[in-house]
């Protein structure tokens, strides 16, 4: 039991412990307002973390670096659609559609030309970032209709974004555990050659992983943007590193084949909590990037060291 859920237990203890430390320094930390703010910030990134994790599980050299750009494109274009008076259900469909289309582009290039998805999405990321700047000219989108802010709609004391983000994540826990498609992701990540001999189309699985990652990024972009009345064109520009960090902290192995959705949710929660804690502890904002970088670095190093210990000798040259 402990070994199976070890990481999740450690994450939970860390999340609670960090909260206790922050509370002793600043008694305003544990308040309904702040906790629902942390949950809200988690809910708009947790699905992206799950999508990212599914790509990384597909094996060494796989990750989706374009999640932030897809997130932004979806957020900005959805807001523009809402601005011209499009019905909200169409706007939601649009955000999912944009994500699917861009995810399919990533998947197509990766699968068709057998390029590591890290490289593909590195290219699409910079191309899409340029597109966003060109499309918006760096301008903010303002004067959105009242119907736009559906994420802030209160249900049982919590915002709709929290219900949707965490609800969909919990659904993903069951889907990943039970659907054959997701079993194939793990198979490819553990041993791609064996997966091929077992009749799994490796190119197809990475295509689906990138497709899902794109879809989640697109939808989360909308979910995040619909909390605000002013949408800036860099809403997702700093998203990719925290997302990868959350996935790795949550137990997704960067070498592929390992990762639990429960861990990803907790990883996302821990990362947003850390961002909140740095504010409550009064650490200057200029150092927040360095702290984030350090966390990511530690997550990556500790993950590889753990994997090396697990399959000692295999990785040694």
């Amino acid at each position: 039991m402990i070994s199976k859920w070890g990481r999740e237990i450690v994450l939970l203890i860390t999340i609670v412990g960090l909260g206790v430390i922050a509370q002793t320094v600043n008694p305003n930390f544990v308040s309904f307002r702040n906790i629902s703010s942390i949950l809200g910030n988690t809910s708009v990134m947790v699905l992206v973390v799950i999508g990212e994790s599914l790509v990384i599980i597909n094996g060494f050299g796989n990750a989706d670096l374009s999640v932030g750009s897809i997130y932004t494109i979806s957020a900005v274009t959805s807001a523009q659609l809402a601005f011209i008076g499009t019905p909200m259900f169409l706007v939601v469909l649009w955000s999912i559609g944009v994500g699917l289309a861009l995810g399919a582009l990533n998947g197509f290039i990766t699968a068709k030309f057998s390029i590591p998805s890290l490289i593909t999405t590195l290219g699409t990321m910079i191309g899409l970032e340029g597109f966003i700047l060109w499309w918006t000219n760096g301008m903010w989108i303002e004067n959105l209709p009242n119907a736009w802010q559906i994420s802030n709609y209160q249900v049982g004391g919590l915002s709709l974004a929290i219900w949707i983000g965490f609800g969909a994540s919990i659904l993903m826990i069951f889907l990943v555990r039970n659907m054959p498609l997701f079993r194939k992701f793990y198979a490819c990540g553990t041993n791609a050659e064996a997966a091929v001999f077992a009749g799994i189309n490796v190119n197809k699985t990475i295509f689906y992983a990138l497709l899902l990652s794109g879809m989640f990024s697109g939808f989360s972009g909308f979910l995040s943007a619909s909390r605000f009345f002013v949408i800036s064109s860099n809403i997702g520009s700093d998203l990719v590193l925290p997302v990868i960090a959350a996935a790795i902290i949550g137990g997704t192995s960067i070498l592929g084949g390992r990762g639990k959705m429960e861990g990803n949710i907790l990883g996302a929660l821990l990362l947003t909590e850390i961002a909140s804690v740095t504010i409550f502890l009064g650490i200057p904002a200029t150092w927040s990037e360095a702290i984030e970088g350090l966390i990511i670095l530690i997550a990556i190093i500790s993950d590889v060291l753990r994997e090396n210990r697990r399959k000692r000798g295999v990785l040694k040259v």
Partner: protein
Amino acid sequence: MRNIKKIEFILLGILIIVIIIMSFLSKAFLNVLTLFQILQLSAELGIMSIPMTLIIITGGIDLSITSTLALSGVIMGYLWKFWGVNIWIAAILAIILGGIAGLFNGTLVAKLRIPALLATLGTWAAYAGLAVGIDRGKGVSGFPQSFLNLGEGSFVGIPYSLLIWAIIAIIFYIVVSKTSFGRYLFAIGNNEKGAFYSGVPVQKVEMTIYILAGLLAGLAGVIYASRTATATSSAFSSGALNVVAASVLGGTDVKGGSGTILGTVLGVLIIALIDAGLTLANVQATVQEIVVGTILISSIIFYEYVGKSKVKTTV
């Protein structure tokens, strides 16, 4: 393995076509002085793309190289302004610091066997954060004229920064094509385990190239600060991928095992001229970013396609 000679000819052709098109777009283009000014803007890109090529040949990548540039520049400015260190000593210390950043990357990749892309993605964030923290978004300027000369001055009409780039390119051209160290790079890129069992000092070679990348990024940071007269944490932040793109466009295989310095130099020249031409033609700066992304992806796809359809030849 790629037919590198052929790729270099194709690149040379593309370069000439780019020059012809650009000279139609703007009358100022086909002027030696303008050309030098344009290339001067790309000296840092050129200097960094050379160690990047060595790293990609071994199957690695260094995404932290532009953060290292920014961090070195910021440290130099800080030492000079707040500690009163002589600017040239500060510059040398900044280059050494770049080397230490590279040493750290090398330790992660060569010793701890962390995939290069992820290791340097992490250090990229860490170094950039460190630069922002030290710099506090303010930037240091007001350097003495003797230091500014490094980025602005020229020797018999050729800017110093271009001379430095040319010297480094020539040295590494010889290292890659004529020395056993160069052979080791290709051996590691093609088959790391095989290279190890054939007696190639894999860890030492990998360590060396990451340290080199750090040192040269430090040097590029110093030149950048001198050229723009400011040391800031936002230095070169827009060009992070240009370095990889230049190298890949130059025929370096992202999967490792092939690439040349000459190809990379041609790749840098093409990207530099396209960038400058678009600026001269009054195209928005944001479109240039799209162009670089498209160049990166399409050249990978192109080389992948050529590599698959044609009979493979050795370097």
